[in-house]
């Protein structure tokens, strides 16, 4: 069991006791951020650093439960202050403060994660924003890599869209499969109808006979 000793709920920090040890638990809740402390640290934290002592016994069966609780407190304290929805623009705007090394890592992650995982829109959003970052604009290598990945993402996104509708390089196949429709209605017209059906989710009606 993990016993709660003191918390700073607005930051999701907590001092806990587990297996006789007192530990500080804090975001990002990774192994390196878990710190062993002695009781005097907890006392000082409560007395001078804004932590609230836990008066009632609150325990958790595991780290996941504790972390979920602390995250709920982060959200709850902000909602109580009237802050309900974090501003996406504010968070994304930090990209303009990122140093070169971090921006380079972003490009690596786009290439190794976003593109292979078909996360086209995320890649496009990020890369488009990166083109406006001063550090990128002033660094030829970074800029060219951003442009290259943007082209790849755009190409991949377009190809994916075309695959979804099954249309690119498929005109000949379409005529082969639906010769009558192609002859009567024309390929472009039928393609437009197919797009509409896919978007609306309705089954494609057979071509009229006779």
């Amino acid at each position, binding site marked *: 069991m993990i016993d709660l000793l003191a918390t700073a709920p607005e930051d999701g920090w907590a001092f806990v006791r587990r297996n006789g040890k007192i530990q500080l638990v804090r975001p990002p809740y990774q192994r390196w951020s878990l*710190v062993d402390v002695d009781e005097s640290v907890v006392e000082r934290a409560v007395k001078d650093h804004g932590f609230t002592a836990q008066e009632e016994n609150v325990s958790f069966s595991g780290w996941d439960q504790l972390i979920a609780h602390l995250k709920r407190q982060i959200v709850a304290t902000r909602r109580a202050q009237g802050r309900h929805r974090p501003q996406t623009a*504010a968070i994304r705007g*930090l990209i303009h403060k990122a140093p070169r090394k971090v921006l380079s890592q972003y490009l690596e992650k786009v290439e190794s994660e976003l593109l292979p995982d078909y996360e086209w829109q995320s890649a496009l959003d990020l890369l488009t924003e990166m083109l406006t970052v001063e550090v990128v604009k002033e660094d030829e290598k970074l800029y060219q890599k951003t442009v290259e990945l943007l082209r790849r993402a755009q190409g991949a996104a377009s190809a994916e869209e075309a695959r979804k509708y099954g249309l690119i390089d498929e005109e000949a196949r379409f005529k082969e499969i639906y010769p009558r429709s192609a002859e009567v209605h024309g390929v472009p017209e039928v393609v437009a109808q197919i797009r509409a059906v896919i978007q609306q989710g309705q089954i494609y009606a057979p071509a009229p006979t006779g």
Partner: protein
Amino acid sequence: MTTSAEIDLFAVAAGNGAALEAAFEEAKASAPGESVLERFAQRIQHDGRIAVNMRQTVLNSFLTFGQHQNTYEWAEWRAEWSSRSAVEIVREKLGPFYERRVTFDGLFVHGRRFRYGALNIAGLGTVTYGEYCVVLREEVSADRAEVAYLKEDSLKTYMLPDLAVDEASLSRDAAPHSHRQCLAALKHADEVEALPEEDWPSLLCSANRYIEAVFTGDVNTGDVELVRISRQDYDVRFLHVFEEFRGGLDEAERMLAEDFAMIWQHLDDKQITLEVIP
């Protein structure tokens, strides 16, 4: 008004300067590597600042409202828009530590006005209290009458079980600003010899071990020299920016990321450097 029971910590520290200096000279003379101890002291004299570690919301609040608050000031501020008194708010906040804290503060002249920090020459400070190490300008400590440095954490070391203060130890271990380097050198005389200079900052100030700085007077954002953050915390914050583009953050992470964006804006506006420490 000072009662006969109250200890004037700053007067005690001020009166200890000569004794600390004499002890330091003796330590230097008997140390195998006299020059190392001298260099350590010089480093502290040159670079020693008061640093206050803050969590993200505490720093954000400090930068937003422009003033540092100790526990009592915070409680009085909260009481202005609460149905509870400041005393009730402090009592709830401190829980089982309330009596000890209030008693301790009552033992000192101006005890309720104390602010606490740590003597710092570089590094991340006392990270168990906050991931941001806010380093105050030297003028904050050099130009104030009420500044004292204690060899150890005051609550842990100088408070006796019967809630009295160990005045003898306190008197021995308190230093004025002018002699903080003597106190630090005496504290670490046995260790500093064997350590490379790049390890001196963490020897002096770390999560569990530090020289406590006690001071009074306002602290506002103009008193800040710089703010330090660890490379790991810094990298996580920018990783979260990437994840935001991906829609990969949960609501709590987004809220913390937004707070970091606000802090960065404040630091930019106030031209305060954010120093990233490996």
